Structure formats: C-alpha cells, structure tokens
C-alpha cells in the first residue's frame, strides 16, 4: 500500500496553517488548516483500499497476423472502490480502439467484465495479462498498485502470401509426391522410348515406334516424386525499425514457402542459423505444417560472438539433394560463409536477400548518408555476384514487394543457369 502524495501535502498544509495561526496570532489561518485536518481525519478513519481480483480470458488463443481478438477482463473487489487498470501489452499487440487504460467503479462483491479489442500486429508467442491495477480508499489518501500476472498465452502465426509457382528442386527424393522426377521409372509423364527387353510389360509397348522400326520399343516415364526443401533462416543479425524488420519478413516468407511446398507433398525442414541454432528435420503433411508454424514463432535474433559453421547442424537436418532456400539479410559474415559452405558441399541453394537497406538509419537516427548507402549497395551487389559465380540464385527482396516476384526471379535465374 502506498500513500498518495495528497496525504503528505494535506498534513503539511494543515500543520503549516496551524503553526502560522499560533505564531502570528491569526485564528483565520486555523480556519484554513481545519478543512485539511478534517479530510485527513476522515480519510484515515475509512477502511484501507480493498483487494481487487482480476482475471483475463481471450476469445481465441491461436490467430494469424492481422487478426483481432477480444480480451475479457473480469474485476471484483471486496469493498466498493474506484479502479484504474493499465494493460502492459507486448510489442506486436495493441488495443483496437480503446486506450490501454481503464477507470471503473466496482461495487461490493459484484464482478465487472470489460471487453477490450486487441489487434495482433506481429507474429510471435505472447503471454498476455500483465496488468497494473490501482485501487484506493474512498478519500484517495492511500493507494495500492498491484501488478497482476494472470497470463493467458496467445500465439500469433505469421501471415501467408499466395504464390502461383515455386522454385523447383533440381533433385527429387525416392518418395512419392507431385513432382516429375528427372529419373526414368514407372510414372505418368512420358520420358522416352527404349528397345524392349524380356520382362517388360506388354502394356508399355509403343506400337507406333515399334511398327515404324520393325523392333519392339517400350515407353519410359518420369516417376512422380517429392523433394526435400530446407528453409534456412539466418538469424545472426537483423535490421529493424518501428513496425518491422528483416527477421519479420524472413519468418513470413518462410511460413508462406513452407505452406506451399507442403501442399505439393514435399518434405519441408527448417534451420534457424544464428546465435541459437534450431532445426526441424524435413517431413511432410499437416502435422509438419503445425510444427513449422510453432518453430517459426520461436525464431529470434540472439546476440552471440561465437563463430558457427554448418558443421554444428546434425546431418539429418540437411538431407542430401535437398533444395536449400536461404532467407538472409546478408549482414553477418557467419551467415554469409555458411551459405558458401552449403554450396561447396553440393547443396542446391537459392538465396533470398532480405534487403536491410529500407531499414537503414544514420548514427544520429536520420536519413543515411547517400554516399555511404551507395557504397553499401555496391558491396551488396558484389556479394550477389560472388554467390552467382558459385551457381547460387540470389535475389533481393524489399518488404514492399510480393514474394511472388522473388520466386519468379529465382526460377528465371535457375532456368538460365541450367
């Protein structure tokens, strides 16, 4: 329980007026001090501030970025009192229309429920319900501030974009899927013809070719296989400003790509390569979609000086012949070298450079120096060229554009590189 500054001031004023009345021999001054003494006497005789109970309930616990939910706050108190409640909302969650503070009157033993609309602006796993509740006695001479942690968990999943095409992996895996493999075996897509050998099924005979060359030929097909796709998130460093950053974009892109690859039966895995290394081994299906969504929520930049190489990753997290799509702002050398290392180990690699340039600030916080910005751009272009020399498709993505454009650019490069 805290004393209000009012209590000290009233006591000081009452004492000052009474002492002045005595010292100066002016009873009028006692007349000024009397009201303050009266308020103090009455206020301190009243019961102390009551205990206020608060509980929080959310209308939904799992939402997508941009969704709005209702938070129901229930207040109750043992004695009637005025209550001030202030939400301490984490970054990424805000109130829709209402301000983050409430002032309400609680009657004795009567619960009061208040609905607050919350906007989920950024993906993440949040614990909501941190409230500061202030109640006071009737005269507001004694106040009680309580921090209430009746937390409710809220998971905001990153929003997804719609993609019409995906970057096709160069190699497929031996499992059945929706991709036409380059290998020849049982399948639907016609690949070639070859001379008949004993054991071939009669239904595979190509009668037109056989009649033209007077020897038997059989059709060969491309089998339908799936592919492994590893989404490689470089989380060593990020560039950010109020309202977003490169990591936000990377996570949104990863969620979009994972959903689309899983929809075509591919196996998708995640590698979070940064201060803390996280991975999710490739798998397919709806369950993997949920696993990826949960894993992405844990992604954050953890500051570290430790030099890390690809060797720290377990072999099963980077399956052979997988397509690795790296989402990186290319800010940290450890991340850049890791990508070179991956390529040199023979992985089919595509890099989406999530440009940190839109988030650039000068050291004073203003617009960056144009000369410095130009040099930085040149350096990044050189870096792109070096990756391209290694056969890696690199494309720059600024947050304002659609991911579709980036995917198309990577596809075009890979077509040309072949």
């Amino acid at each position, binding site marked *: 329980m805290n004393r209000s500054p009012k209590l*000290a*001031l009233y006591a000081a*004023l009452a004492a000052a007026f009474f002492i002045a009345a005595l010292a100066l021999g002016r009873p009028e001054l*006692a*007349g000024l001090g009397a*009201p303050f003494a*009266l308020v103090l006497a009455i206020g301190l005789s009243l019961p102390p501030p009551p205990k206020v109970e608060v509980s929080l309930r959310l209308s939904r616990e799992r939402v997508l970025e941009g969704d709005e939910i209702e938070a129901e706050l229930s207040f109750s108190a043992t004695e009637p009192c005025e209550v001030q409640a202030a939400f301490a909302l984490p970054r990424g969650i805000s109130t829709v229309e209402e301000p983050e503070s409430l002032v309400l009157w609680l009657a004795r033993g009567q619960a009061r429920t208040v609905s607050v609309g919350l906007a989920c602006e950024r993906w993440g796993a949040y614990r909501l319900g941190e409230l500061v509740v202030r109640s006071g006695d009737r005269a507001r001479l004694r106040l009680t501030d309580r921090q209430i942690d009746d937390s409710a968990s809220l998971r905001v999943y990153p929003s997804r974009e719609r993609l019409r095409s995906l970057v096709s992996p160069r190699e497929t895996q031996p499992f059945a899927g929706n991709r036409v493999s380059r290998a020849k075996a049982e399948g639907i897509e016609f690949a070639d013809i070859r001379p008949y050998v004993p054991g071939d099924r009669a239904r595979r005979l190509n009668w037109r070719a056989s009649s033209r060359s007077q020897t038997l030929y059989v059709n060969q097909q491309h089998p339908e296989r799936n592919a492994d796709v590893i989404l490689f998130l470089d989380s060593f460093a990020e560039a950010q400003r109020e309202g977003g950053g490169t990591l936000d974009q990377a996570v949104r892109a990863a969620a979009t790509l994972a959903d689309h690859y899983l929809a075509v039966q591919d196996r998708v895995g995640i590698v979070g390569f940064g201060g803390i290394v996280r991975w999710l081994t490739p798998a397919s299906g709806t369950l993997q979609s949920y696993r990826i969504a949960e894993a992405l929520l844990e992604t954050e930049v953890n500051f570290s000086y430790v030099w890390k190489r690809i060797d720290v990753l377990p072999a099963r997290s980077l399956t052979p012949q997988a397509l690795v799509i790296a989402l990186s702002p290319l800010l940290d050398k450890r991340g850049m070298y890791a990508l070179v290392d991956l390529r040199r180990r023979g992985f089919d690699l595509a890099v989406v450079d999530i440009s940190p340039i839109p988030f650039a600030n000068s050291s004073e916080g203003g617009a960056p120096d144009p000369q410095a910005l130009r040099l930085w751009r040149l350096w990044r272009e050189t870096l792109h060229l070096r990756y391209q020399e290694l056969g890696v498709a690199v494309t720059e993505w600024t947050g304002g554009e659609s991911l579709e454009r980036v995917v198309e650019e990577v596809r075009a490069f890979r077509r040309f590189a072949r």
Partner: protein
Amino acid sequence: MSSRYLRLALAATAIAVAIALAVYPMLDGGKLGLLVDAMGAGALLSLLLPLLWRGHGASLPLILLGAEYIATESTGHLAAVSVVAYAAGLIVLCELVFWLAELPAAATIDAGVVVRRLLVLALTGVAAASASSVALLGSSVRLGSAIVALLLGGLAASALLAIPLLLVRERSRR
C-alpha cells in the same frame, strides 16, 4: 467516456480556481505586496507543471498558494467570509490537481466514476467551508472561565493529535 475531455475540463477548472485563489490575496498584499505577488505568480506558473507533465510537482502550486495567503494574513486582515471561501477553494483545487495527476493520459472512464468524483468534490468543498466556519466561530467565542478555555483547547489539541496517531496506526498496519 474518454479521459482527454475530462482532463481538459479539469485543467480549465483548476486554472480558473487557481487564478481566483492567487489574485485575491494580491489585492491586499500590504507591506509584503511584492512577495505576495511573486508567490501568486509563481503558484500560477507552477500549476502548469502538473497540467503539462502528467501530475509531476502537483504540490508546489498548492504550497505556494498557502504561503501566499499566510504572507497576506501576516500583514493585514482579510474578511472572515473570505477565509471560508478561500479554504473551500484551496481544498477543491487540491482535489482537482490530484485527480488530474491520477488520471491516465488516454483511458476509458466510467461515467459513474466521474459522477461520484464530482459529488465527493462538492461534498469536500461544503465540508471544508463548514470546518473553516466552525474553526473561525470557535476562535471568536468569548469564554468566561479559564478552565473551560483550557478544556476546550485541550480537546482541540487532542483532536489534532489524532491525525498523527492515525498515520502511525496506518504505518503499523502496513
């Protein structure tokens, strides 16, 4: 109800009351006129501090107003009716300034809370005027006997001492 309009209304009322309280003693500053004027002006200027800086330094203008009145009263006699009005005005100003200091910058406020607060404010003003009148009446009573005067004085002193006792009791409760 939004707290913004309420804050504006409270601030406007507080400024009006503070101007009245600061200017009245200036009219009869006596020998200490310059000091009274300076304190009145200081009180008005310092009132801007809690109004603009979310309740910080709320006590300063109120202390200056009190000091201004004491300085005026030390040199000249103000009318007894004015003391009653001044006492009620000063306590209402205190309540307004502290209400303003407590009020969040942006909040949704129950209309019931505002009505209750206004009622308490009015009641405090009336109670302050009554307490002030009683104190003034008490001081003007002519007592025939010194023993009765001693008894009444003792009673008043013990009533005043009850306040520190209440404060001590609060501390021990905590």
